[in-house]
């Protein structure tokens, strides 16, 4: 257990900064065809009419352009923790502007970005690399991101154990039924079978309940993370909630230490991008 908390995690914050920045930038670009609809009160009654958010909808092009610029600076590692802070602020503003579109992924990311403000993610993959060593505040912030991921799993498992539909083994069928095209998908035939529907239901509870101890224990860490990644990719293809799934999958990287991250990245990439600082 001590190994899990004390191991160095200096590489992944830089990788996360670049990848989550790209996810948010892609999401922002994908909004462009929908902005006329989304930011026009004639077609969207959910838009805030008062307060400091309302003018952002009126000047949505300017708002989205500045957000895109902030994301580019963040990805390139320019502006250091100030750009991390701005990404958090813009993400929160975007959530307020697009409330009906929010998924759990956005809420998870909001708090992850809040903790990420304090992480020195500029040790690698940055135009303006940090010259200082990884600070204690950075360490606490990385632990906060990890504790947040653990909270998500523990709270989900706790909720599911107490929920009637999960206890009866019918929750997974209901969850899938909410999405378009379920009746025509392969999942329909699988989940129409009582044995499979209930087995998957109880397996999900077990997986969420055991995730934290399995991740902390070195020998089961890899399998626990791989299994979770597999489940999220299945959901990505079935539900098409690509942003939500990618946010969660990217957060798993914080559960791995530098040595484990280096084992995952091919040598030639390491030499080019994450060589040791001099």
């Amino acid at each position: 257990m001590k190994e899990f908390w004390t191991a160095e995690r200096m590489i992944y914050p830089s990788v996360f900064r670049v990848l989550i920045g790209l996810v948010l930038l892609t999401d922002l670009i994908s909004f462009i065809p929908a902005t006329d609809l989304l930011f026009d009160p004639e077609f969207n009654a959910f838009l805030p009419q008062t307060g400091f958010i309302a003018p952002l909808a009126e000047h949505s092009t300017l708002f989205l352009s500045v957000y895109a610029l902030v994301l580019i600076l963040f990805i390139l590692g320019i502006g250091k923790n100030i750009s991390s802070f701005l990404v958090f602020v813009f993400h929160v503003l975007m959530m307020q502007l697009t409330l009906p579109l929010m998924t759990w992924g956005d809420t998870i990311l909001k708090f992850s970005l809040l903790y990420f403000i304090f992480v020195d993610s500029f040790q690698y993959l940055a135009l303006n690399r940090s010259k200082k060593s990884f600070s204690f505040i950075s360490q606490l912030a990385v632990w906060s991101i990890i504790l947040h991921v653990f909270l998500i799993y523990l709270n989900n498992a706790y909720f599911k154990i107490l929920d009637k539909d999960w206890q009866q083994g019918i929750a997974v069928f209901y969850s899938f039924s909410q999405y378009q095209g379920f009746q025509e998908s392969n999942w329909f035939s699988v989940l129409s079978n009582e044995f499979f529907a209930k087995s998957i239901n109880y397996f999900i509870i077990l997986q969420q309940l055991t995730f934290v101890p399995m991740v902390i224990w070195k020998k089961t860490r890899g399998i626990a993370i791989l299994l979770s990644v597999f489940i999220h990719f299945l959901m990505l293809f079935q539900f098409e909630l690509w942003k939500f799934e990618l946010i969660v999958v990217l957060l798993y990287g914080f559960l791995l230490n530098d040595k484990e991250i280096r084992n995952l990245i091919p040598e030639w990439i390491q030499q080019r991008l994450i060589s040791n600082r001099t």
Partner: protein
Amino acid sequence: MKPQRLLFTLFVLYWAGVYGVTFFAGNSFKSKFRDTIPTGYRMFAPVTNTNYDVYYEFYSGGELKEKFFISDYLKRQNEKSVVFKKSNFVKERLYGGLIKTLDYHYQKSLYDELYKQKENDFEKQVLINRELIPIVENLKQFPQLYLLENPEIEADSISISVLRKPMILPFAPDYKDDFTYKIGEKTFFQTSLNLKP
């Protein structure tokens, strides 16, 4: 106290507070802190066990000109290029995604009427509840968007019907252990839109 030790103490206190609120606090207490700390996650959970749809009828001079379910419209939109995926997602969320909230209030009002002998105030809620007003407003805004997308359709009034259909479990089709099944399949909300100047 050394700065590092102080920081670590604050860190431990913060996370003890977050876990404490998440697991032990009541919903009203959690709602006060929801924006500032993570207070709980219910992901991959069935938000509802009912399917919904909206049926639109476009009239001109009393004559029916167009009729469709919004689910069919969204399905057609989804078949368009990947460039429009987000637009479709936005339409789905704005015009159909929150009907479960409308139904939740419908169910609650009906339940209170049947089992608690309270007045059924659903019609009143639709007019005054700040959560429901934009949902109903968007139900009326969608046909105006549709008319913009299809300028060949002439309409002076639109009838809007919101339907509910409890999900049937294939391995337990007689399952009724929930109030939604007692209400059953029906149109639970109707409204209209007059476009005459």
